[in-house]
């Protein structure tokens, strides 16, 4: 694996103006993409209608109602999900020192999904507010299993294969549950491939406190992560509590990806691809890496969701499938470029 050469931090601090403007450009692009996202769908809407719906809402206009009632919600979900997954990916790659880490590839998403399916099938009377909790439980369980399987030495290949084994395990167990409960299969099969729908806005309400907390806390970790980037021993000698840092990182990943799974099902590869895209723009410094990843993650998911609705119109493909088709080739390119 290649080590990148990093410029000292005093240089990067002076350059933060260009980073700020870069972030601004990204925001603008994201805004444009959001408009496109609102305009496409089963019925195409022109931009004026959307503008009116957002600024001067007239509930009697049916087109404006579509925007306000369903598309706006879907957009919000896509933005949140994308940003959360991207952040989870950055943190995961940072604490595992592994450029190929991704909550989807490592089985964390499928662990969360299995727990959610199990809770839906076995405890149907339970309030849906508890779904994220089950997702966290599953994500934690899967993360612990992957860590136990991959051992302590930093070996990308072993970590990924442990993730594949765990994913297979949870996927099969989910399949068994669905075979036992045939109606469950019909109900859940959309959700299981990572779907974003308008109805998810309600689910977003269950998870946004967790997500907000996780994002804020991850910015607290920035300084420790910068030190950790130089190596575990160096970080320890600089006074970073490495165990605590790794644990916090893991908790963050679990909360972020668990929340996403509870809302939209397992969506893979966003956490893998976005950090690499962000790193093309930001060489080091986790503050900006986080900011850019959040923006790029939201952008990638909005674009994927647009594609999901455009490709097979009037049908919709699930967003998770689109991200897999975008992400897997990036993963392969990374492997071919970096591994020897």
């Amino acid at each position, binding site marked *: 694996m290649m080590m990148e050469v990093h410029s000292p931090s005093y240089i990067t601090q002076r350059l933060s103006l260009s980073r700020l403007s870069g972030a601004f450009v990204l925001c603008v692009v994201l805004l444009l993409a959001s408009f496109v996202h609102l305009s496409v769908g089963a019925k195409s809407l022109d931009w004026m209608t959307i503008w009116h719906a957002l600024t001067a809402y007239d509930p009697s206009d049916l087109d404006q109602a579509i925007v306000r009632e369903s598309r706006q919600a879907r957009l919000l979900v896509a933005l949140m999900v994308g940003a959360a997954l991207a952040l989870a990916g950055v943190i995961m790659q940072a604490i595992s020192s592994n450029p190929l880490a991704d909550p989807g590839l490592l089985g964390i998403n499928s662990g969360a999904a299995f727990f959610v399916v199990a809770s839906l099938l076995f405890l149907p009377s339970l309030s849906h507010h508890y779904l994220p909790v089950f997702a966290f439980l599953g994500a934690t369980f899967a993360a612990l299993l992957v860590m136990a399987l991959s051992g302590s030495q930093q070996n990308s290949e072993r970590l990924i294969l442990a993730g594949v084994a765990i994913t297979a395990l949870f996927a099969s167990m989910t399949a068994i549950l669905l075979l036992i409960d045939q109606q469950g299969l019909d109900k859940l099969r959309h959700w299981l491939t990572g779907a974003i729908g308008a109805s998810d806005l309600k689910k977003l309400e269950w998870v946004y406190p967790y997500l907000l907390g996780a994002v804020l806390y991850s910015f607290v970790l920035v300084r420790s992560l910068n030190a950790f980037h130089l190596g575990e021993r160096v970080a320890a000698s600089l006074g970073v509590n490495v165990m605590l840092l790794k644990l916090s990182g893991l908790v963050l990943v679990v909360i972020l990806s668990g929340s996403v799974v509870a809302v939209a099902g397992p969506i893979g590869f966003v956490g893998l691809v976005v950090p690499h895209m962000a790193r093309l723009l930001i060489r080091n410094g986790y503050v900006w890496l986080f900011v850019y990843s959040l923006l790029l993650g939201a952008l990638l998911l909005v674009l994927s969701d647009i594609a999901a609705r455009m490709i097979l119109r009037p049908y919709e493909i699930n967003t998770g499938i689109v991200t897999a088709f975008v992400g*897997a080739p990036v993963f392969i390119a990374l492997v071919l470029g970096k591994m020897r």
Partner: protein
Amino acid sequence: MKAVLFSPRPLRLGFSSKVNFHARASDLFWLMFFIAMLVFLFLWSAATGSYQLSVWDSWSIVFDPASMPDRLVQVIWEFRLPRMFAAALCGAALAIAGVVLQSITRNALASPGLIGVEAGASATMLVFVVILPSVIPIVFLPVTAMLGGFIVATFIWVLSSAAGYSPVRLVLVGVGITSMLSAFTEMLITYGDIELVESALMWLGGSLYQTSWQQVYVMVFWLVIPGTLIWLSFRQLNLLVLGDKVAFSKGVDNRKTVPFLLFLSVALTSASVATAGTLTFVGLIAPHIARRFCSNRHGALIPLSALIGACLVVLGDTLGRSAFAPLQLPAGLVLVLVGAPYFIILMGRLKR
């Protein structure tokens, strides 16, 4: 007795000074042990089902059919036995493929699924079940699935070795392609007609429902030829485990041996996928169990893994059709449930 049996000193067994081979006494003992185990599992499996028999009855039906009532003989010989043979053969094939994959990549977590055969076969199968039903006659579906598996495996090999072969790349490119294909499979599962999807899912989960003797004969052919060739390459595999450089300097031509062995294991995997669907965990776990008895001595490891793989699938299939009766769980899924906890404990131990 015990000292001889478990002495690490290999015995030289042979017919003459030219034709002979080395084996540890313990390896021979474990081979015998698992053959006996397989026979017992067979009898138990033949006795188990909606019409319950005693193990002794199934013994007489299998070895002395004339003495038993015709109806029973028919149930066992026409329904249960072919299914069990298919289970055992598929388990053995996958276990051998798993040994090859783990030894070539020197990674304990590699499995035959990684080179894309299962994903390719599943995707092909779903295309012809869900999107284009009745384009291909049902009889040819397994062959088509096999072809799909082969094509995907070849693609992964070409892609990962274009810039020089490395085991790490092979495995990780396999992961990438596999996850792309499974996204495609998921898409079909999500949007397909629920009836068609259900039948495809049953097959994908590794179900041996309705296996005929015909399929068993075909599977024997597909197991014996590649399996024997792999077993005869046990010395190459012994050396490959020591590292590519060591193997090369001892005269193993990696550039020919590795693709050859991979090709054979792809053949084994795709044949078993065509017969029984995806039995993901066998190829991963059977070699591990076998390695506890004979570590990396491939001369013993290959047949022992095959036996253990056969035992596992027979066990999984029997449990799957009896434990939750009348509900039939596919063998592959049962195996995951049974095998996964063991696997995790095993890997935890290996770490230390």
